[in-house]
């Protein structure tokens, strides 16, 4: 076993949260499809949800869930490829599938047992049959005998869950007789007795009825007529009828959540219609889900942390003033408050920060399983698991990471034979590496496989109509084509990747986090996918500088050195924007010019701050250097979000605002400028 049972359960729980989110998204997507049709990205969204659940489920060996989802996914795939057109009945079936997947996920999360219980399996059977019917096409024409949707005769499939009361034998009733009678008004397709409910001999009380079963029932009778069968014993039975059918009727039936049954089983037996919105069902499930952890809107925590940041700043002021008064009692109180404030700040930050290691360890299993499936030998190296990340980012990065890893193993790494032929170590290596890269978090997935094939990618993109044949693209642009929706270089669709769904999700998810993803690849040496994500909230070490009247903070980790922009350098520049720093070219950016920050103070002395990001470096021309500074990063307000080159702000002890420079953005700006101005200079800028 790769995972201990405990770890597996932990992983399944993590999967549960993720899956429930996906299922909610799926439901929303389906609702939209029903209203607006499959256009836009709607069908893709639903498909992706199913695909991801199948994928993650597969990693955790939730076989039953995977099998079930696989069929649903197939049908969705046919629909999005316009091979099958979606009908309202189909959408309804998908709703049922979604609910059923949810039940399965919850079941797995609560039980370490690998196999779902019988009633769930019966349900799966029904739904899979329905889906298969749709997949076989021509639903209308050759409605097969076992077609689940309502046909002309009004035959429906029902799932009947029955639990008889223990006293039923003493009333002279035999549950078997009711089941026999059922077959007179329809067909008992299958019956599953919950034998676990019957104890062993030692604990058996033979006069108590222990019969509990799930019946797959097919009949043209109405729900009330079926319920009538059990009229005799309506007080001594817990009955749940679920139809696997279309439209309105199903809604009524489906909505009978357990709570309803408990409260009013007799009501179920007698009443004509039970109209409760679907939401009731969902709400109940959600409340169960949340019992172990509390989900809080991240905005609320943002506000809290912002407020605490304000307090830290205000407190700095108080401390300063108190020290002037020189009252020992006051000083003591002030320092007590400071200490507590520090603790509050730390705990508030902790709410959101988690080590990425938990997520990473999940990948061990994934890599293990995929390598088995593919018959490739893979060594996984993980480093930087202790890197702390915002919880929301960790959650959202998990999907894209899974996709990248799967793609790397499936498409990147060669088979053992190929590797031997190439003289490589027959074991492929996959490196997962996370690190703080000054104000950002970088996660790298590196494989030592065959690398990206530029030609093949370009050809495929042309084929798919993503680019035109005569377009001239740089290597980077070609690599980026694999992030286009619907792009897939695999000639055959494998179970692992190659449906062309993964990589566009990767980019979408990362961009949604205001991050970037880059690819480095060398033929036959391998590829590296680098995701860079912003630390939206954190306290970083900054380097405080001043240009004109404006303070700027540069993330300290990016700062390499500071040098004076001496007359010598100035002379050498000849009006160009670069200098020769120890025999290598250092492009420069004049912060004052770039941000047009006033033109007062007739330039005293200028300094160059050499910064490094993603292996490249450049210099920022600033005026005053104020040195290291603990920076509480605060997001810019909405109206300033669009400003390029500024990633956030912070408040200084004096109450002034300092802007945090977005080095990656400025770096891009410089690279673009250089590419524009000169032909080959950009390459020389590269360091190491």
């Amino acid at each position, binding site marked *: 076993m790769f995972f201990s049972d405990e770890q597996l359960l932990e992983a399944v729980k993590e999967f549960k949260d993720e899956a429930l989110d996906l299922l909610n998204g799926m439901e929303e997507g389906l609702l939209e499809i029903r209203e607006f049709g499959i256009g836009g990205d709607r069908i893709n969204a639903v498909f992706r949800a199913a695909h991801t659940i199948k994928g993650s489920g597969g990693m955790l060996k939730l076989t039953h869930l995977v099998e079930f989802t696989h069929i649903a996914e197939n049908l969705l795939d046919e629909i999005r490829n316009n091979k099958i057109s979606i009908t309202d009945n189909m959408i309804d079936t998908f709703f049922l599938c979604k609910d059923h997947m949810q039940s399965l996920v919850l079941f797995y999360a609560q039980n370490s047992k690998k196999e779902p219980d019988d009633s769930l399996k019966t349900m799966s059977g029904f739904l899979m049959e329905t889906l298969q019917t749709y997949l076989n096409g021509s639903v209308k024409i050759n409605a097969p005998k076992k077609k689940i949707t309502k046909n002309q005769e009004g035959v429906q499939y029902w799932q009947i869950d029955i639990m008889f009361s223990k006293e039923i*034998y003493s009333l002279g009733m*035999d*549950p*078997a007789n009711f*089941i*026999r009678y059922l077959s007179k008004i329809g067909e008992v397709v*299958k*019956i*599953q*007795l919950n*034998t676990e409910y*019957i*104890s*062993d*001999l*030692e604990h*058996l009380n*033979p*006069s108590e*009825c*222990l*019969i509990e*079963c799930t019946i797959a029932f097919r009949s043209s009778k109405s729900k009330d007529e079926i319920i009538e069968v059990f009229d005799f014993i309506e007080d001594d039975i817990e009955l749940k009828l679920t139809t696997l059918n279309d439209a309105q009727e199903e809604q009524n039936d489906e909505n009978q959540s357990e709570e309803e049954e408990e409260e009013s089983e007799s009501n179920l037996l007698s009443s004509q219609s039970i109209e409760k919105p679907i939401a009731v069902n969902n709400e109940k499930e959600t409340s169960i889900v949340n019992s172990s952890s509390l989900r809080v809107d991240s905005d609320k925590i943002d506000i809290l942390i912002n407020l605490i940041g304000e307090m830290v700043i205000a407190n700095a002021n108080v401390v300063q003033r108190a020290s002037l008064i020189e009252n020992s009692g006051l000083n003591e109180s002030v320092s007590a408050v400071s200490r507590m404030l520090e603790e509050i700040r730390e705990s508030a930050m902790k709410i959101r920060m988690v080590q990425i290691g938990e997520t990473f360890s999940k990948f061990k299993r994934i890599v293990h399983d995929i390598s088995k499936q593919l018959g490739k030998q893979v060594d996984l190296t993980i480093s930087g698991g202790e890197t702390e990340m915002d919880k929301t980012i960790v959650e959202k990065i998990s999907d894209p990471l899974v996709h990248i890893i799967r793609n790397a193993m499936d498409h990147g790494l060669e088979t053992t034979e190929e590797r031997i032929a190439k003289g490589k170590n027959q074991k492929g290596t996959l490196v997962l590496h996370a690190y703080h890269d000054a104000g950002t978090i970088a996660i790298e997935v590196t494989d030592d496989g065959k690398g990206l094939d530029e030609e093949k990618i370009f050809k495929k993109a042309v084929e798919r109509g993503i680019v035109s044949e005569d377009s001239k693209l740089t290597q980077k642009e070609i690599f980026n084509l694999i992030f286009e929706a619907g792009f897939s270089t695999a000639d055959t669709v494998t179970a692992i990747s190659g449906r062309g769904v993964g990589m566009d999700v990767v980019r979408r998810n990362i961009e949604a986090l205001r991050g970037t993803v880059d690819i480095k690849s060398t033929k036959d040496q391998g590829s590296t996918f680098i995701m860079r994500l912003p630390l939206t909230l954190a306290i970083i070490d900054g380097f405080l500088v001043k240009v004109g009247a404006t303070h700027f903070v540069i993330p300290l980790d990016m700062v390499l050195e500071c040098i004076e922009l001496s007359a010598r350098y100035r002379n050498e520049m000849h009006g160009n924007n670069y200098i020769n720093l120890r025999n290598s070219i250092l492009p420069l950016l004049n912060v004052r010019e770039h941000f047009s920050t006033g033109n007062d103070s007739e330039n005293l002395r200028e300094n160059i701050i050499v910064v490094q990001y993603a292996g490249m470096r450049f210099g920022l021309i600033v005026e005053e250097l104020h040195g290291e500074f603990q920076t509480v990063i605060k997001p810019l307000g909405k109206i300033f979000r669009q400003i390029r080159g500024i990633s956030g702000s912070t408040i200084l002890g004096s109450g002034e605002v300092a802007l945090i420079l977005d080095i990656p953005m400025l770096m891009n700006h410089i690279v673009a400028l250089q590419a524009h101005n000169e032909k080959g200079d950009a390459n020389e800028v590269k360091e190491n």
Partner: protein
Amino acid sequence: MISIEDESYVISPPTELNIHTVEDFVENLKNELVEDKDIILNLADISEIDSAGFQVLVALKNEALKRSVSLKINDMSPEVYEIITLYGVHTFIENNK
């Protein structure tokens, strides 16, 4: 009703295995099946069986599982076959016949 043959318990339940007879039958089983021996069920003579009787058979099987002994069904009457299939416990037969 219960005898020991070749180190196995051979059990022949009452011909009418229903709510009226199960109590005595189970009491009997509890008293007799003291050792972890394999169990052989002779169900050929059962002319009537209801759910109460049926669940005793399931309980016996669960007991055998718990004791890690085998449980074999020697033969069964159509009545027994009917209720076992009615409750869809085919594995009960397959595993033990």
